[in-house]
């Protein structure tokens, strides 16, 4: 009987929400043909109910789930209890209404949303989620809620904070930089600065607290340092990104700290081999940041922003980045098998960066070509790393 109560409440809520939203959509958007909209909703409900009748039977037949029979009304279509049809019905009542109501958002609002998402660099989301997920999984060897919550956190909210805060406080230099506005980040309109910071805070804090409950003091420290580095990198007064060398260190920590958090939440012990591996990752991240800063020397100097590259110049920074990459590869050679295989991952980075050995401050913007390749290289490196992780996984 309980399931019927649940099903009826679900459908009733969907009906209510759907009616309100549809009314709103009809009033606001004169271009919706009302009859056609309602007909499409009816067809959707019928099609989904028919599909449910087929697939629910298959799923129950395959033993994917079952019900406490004392909670059922007792009517069923094949194996599917009649209450199960509340899901497709509620979906058809509510979702198209939500869609129609939101569709008519002004073009401006739609562009704002797109800008906010763009500002978090969706193409780089995986770069922080992967280190966490890989580290956590290698220790626990099972997927649980901490894994899912942690991967989600380092996939989206973390990047919203990291890049959002950055875009807000870097508005001046970004304005002078023709590179912004694509995959490398949005030029965030001043109107969106306050909402960006709010979104960053509201999406990060609950995740941090939730993840904190899963670990001890060491994990709390790692989470706190990780969040601090995200804020300190671009927030006023701290502005680590404007302190040469500390900028590269902090930026690299943005990518290494998810792995450390993952290890600690999973209850892993940090031993010599892990320190080597994390150090290699750290050097790799510093190289990536330093080399990335070279292309911005011009705009950064114009806006009076300091970076490792404006401090020591394009040529020295490029050479330092190359050495850091080579050092990262060398460190991997001293890790236990199959770690040494990972040394090969730095080769494409070295090949990509080496042609700029003689780059000058004047033509430093040209390194942007290598930087664009760098974004693609990261996916290749991620692929190789994944293969190595699978090797390691099967070895133990």
């Amino acid at each position, binding site marked *: 009987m309980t399931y019927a109560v649940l099903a009826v409440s679900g459908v009733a809520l969907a009906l209510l929400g759907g009616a309100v939203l549809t009314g709103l959509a009809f009033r606001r958007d004169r271009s919706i043909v009302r009859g056609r909209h309602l007909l499409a909703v009816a067809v959707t409900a019928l099609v989904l109910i028919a599909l449910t009748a087929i697939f629910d039977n298959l799923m129950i037949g395959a033993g994917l789930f079952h019900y406490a029979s004392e909670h059922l009304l007792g009517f069923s279509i094949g194996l599917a209890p009649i209450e199960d049809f509340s899901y*497709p019905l509620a979906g058809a009542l509510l979702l198209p209404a939500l869609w129609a109501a939101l569709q008519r958002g002004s073009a401006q609002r739609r562009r704002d949303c797109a800008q906010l998402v763009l500002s978090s660099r969706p193409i780089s989301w995986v770069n922080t989620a992967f280190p966490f997920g890989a580290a956590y999984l290698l220790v626990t060897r099972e997927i649980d809620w901490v894994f899912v919550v942690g991967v989600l956190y380092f996939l989206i909210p973390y990047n919203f904070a990291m890049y959002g805060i950055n875009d807000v406080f870097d508005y001046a230099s970004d304005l002078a930089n023709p590179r912004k506005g694509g995959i490398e980040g949005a030029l965030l309109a001043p109107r969106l600065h306050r909402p960006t910071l709010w979104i960053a805070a509201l999406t990060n804090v609950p995740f941090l607290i939730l993840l904190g409950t899963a670990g001890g003091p060491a994990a709390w420290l790692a989470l706190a340092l990780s969040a601090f580095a995200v804020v300190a990198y671009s927030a006023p007064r701290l502005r680590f990104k404007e302190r040469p060398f500390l900028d590269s260190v902090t930026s690299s920590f943005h990518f290494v700290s998810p792995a450390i958090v993952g290890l600690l939440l999973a209850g892993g012990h940090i031993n010599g081999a892990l320190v080597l591996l994390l150090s290699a990752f750290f050097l790799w991240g510093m190289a990536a940041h330093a080399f990335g800063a070279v292309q911005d020397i011009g705009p950064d100097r114009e806006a009076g922003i300091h970076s490792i590259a404006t401090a020591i110049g394009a040529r020295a920074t490029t050479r330092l980045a190359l050495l850091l990459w080579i050092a990262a590869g060398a460190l991997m050679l001293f890790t236990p098998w199959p770690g040494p295989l990972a040394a090969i991952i730095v080769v494409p980075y070295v090949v990509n960066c080496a042609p700029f050995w003689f780059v000058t401050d004047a033509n430093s913007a040209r390194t942007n070509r290598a930087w664009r390749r760098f974004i693609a290289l990261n996916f290749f490196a991620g692929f190789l790393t994944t293969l190595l992780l699978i090797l390691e996984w099967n070895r133990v």
Partner: protein
Amino acid sequence: MGMLYLGLLLGGIACMLLLDRRFSLFFWHDPAVALLVTAVGTALFLVWDLAGIAAGVFFRGEGVVASGIVLAPELPLEEPVFLIFLVLCTMVVFTGSARIFGAMRDRRSADGDAAIRRDANRRDPRRGDA
């Protein structure tokens, strides 16, 4: 066998997205709103599931086609994926049928005064796919 159900679900999602892309229905029509609808829909269904689990109505089966990975008591990894699929399926059927009804009405009115329409098309070729 353990990944069969999850694989089928992901395959189903991929097929829905291909349909979506081919006819610019949902994500390919308005990505931001589509993302929001998918997130809200999945979250609501998930709350519904959790309520059912808490009330002792639903139980995870021991089916051999399931991965056996559990996110919470009685909540397998596959369930949120299924819910995303359900939302996508709903929205592709809805936007698709709305599109078909629109096209049918256009054709009916076109049959009525084909001459005027031909004339109109000559002046504005975009009218055909209104």
